[in-house]
């Protein structure tokens, strides 16, 4: 009994769907391989465990990354 109402509600919802311009959809699209993406994770992304060694003497100058991520 309730199924026709569910279907009607669904169809009404689709008919009144939010309008998203093509340009906006494009700006939310997945990155293409050729794009310069500063937020694409490398396949060898590190684990946080042990990534940073605690400096012997507290202070930012002594904080270093344990690999080639570069000193902060």
């Amino acid at each position, binding site marked *: 009994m309730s199924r026709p109402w569910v279907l009607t*509600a669904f169809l009404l*919802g689709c008919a*009144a*769907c*939010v*309008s*998203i*311009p093509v*340009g*906006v*959809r494009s*700006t*939310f*699209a*997945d*990155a293409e391989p050729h*794009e*310069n*993406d*500063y*937020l*694409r*994770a*490398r396949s060898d*992304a*590190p*684990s*946080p*465990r*042990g*990534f*940073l060694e*605690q*400096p012997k003497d*507290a*202070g*930012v100058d002594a*904080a270093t*990354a344990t*690999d*080639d*991520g*570069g*000193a*902060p």
Partner: protein
Amino acid sequence: MRRALLAIAFALVLSGCGTFTRPVDVLDVKRDATHRPSYAGLPIRSGQIILTESPEATSFAFALIPDRFYNFTHAGIVALEDGEAWVYEASGELATLPTHSRLLDNVTGAVHRRPFFEYISPNLYAEIFDPPDGVDGEKVAAFARARFADKTPFDAYFRWEDHQALFCTELVELSLRAGGGAPREPGGVRFQPSLDQALGWLGVRRDQAFPAGVYEDDSRFVAALGQFPSRVNAHAYFAAKRELYRRFHHPDQRLGFIFTMKGTGEIHLREEIADFVVNASHLFDAWSPAPEPHGPEIIAGVRAFADRTFGPAPD
């Protein structure tokens, strides 16, 4: 265990189940002669400002808009009434079944009055701050209470110039002014082509922003609560958001590098971005003693972690 909980929180949000409640831990409390416990062991007073960070993807989108990075994405006013603590805040929700073609026309809301812990519970993190010196906290709370009483609607378009409807920091700012606080005006927006396109589509102002983090003042810190194991974890999380902000503002970056968007207009964090943020929040777990929550090694360490996760990115 805590790390698992945080990961679950993100997973639930990524899967579209954003509303759920969890226990809230008290992570830090200021205690001195002027901060004596008044509610649940906390030095709560009317007129304090509460800043929160939600696990939803919109909190990452809001952070990209201002002309500099700010911690936190939502703000409210604390009130102590008959021994109970409450939060007044302006917020809205996107309708499950949108009926308007303009996305933000499907957002409805108002000024709400919520029990203190119930309000904090769905959030990742919250900090409470005293109002500025000379501000009458009771008057601050009275203004917010009156906006709740008169059912002031939520302003999904963030129109600062129109106070008939309010967004979160608009309620906080007007409440503080009612208590005698010095006026604060909206700040600027940092232009980024992809973000500008989305803001233009939404129909929100593209020349000003009023981020919640403008009210963060560590000299007025009162308490920290939430799902993180410590304040250091929370501020490492904020440092990860700061790094996303820094990387995103290159003009060739697109919102699709951080978010996915459904046909309804809802956005979600990409999985690799959520992984980065959760992992960054745990970078200092083994440090003893832990760094200070605002210590410079947190931002520097998270940036080094981002360089290894995503590759280097210029300033």
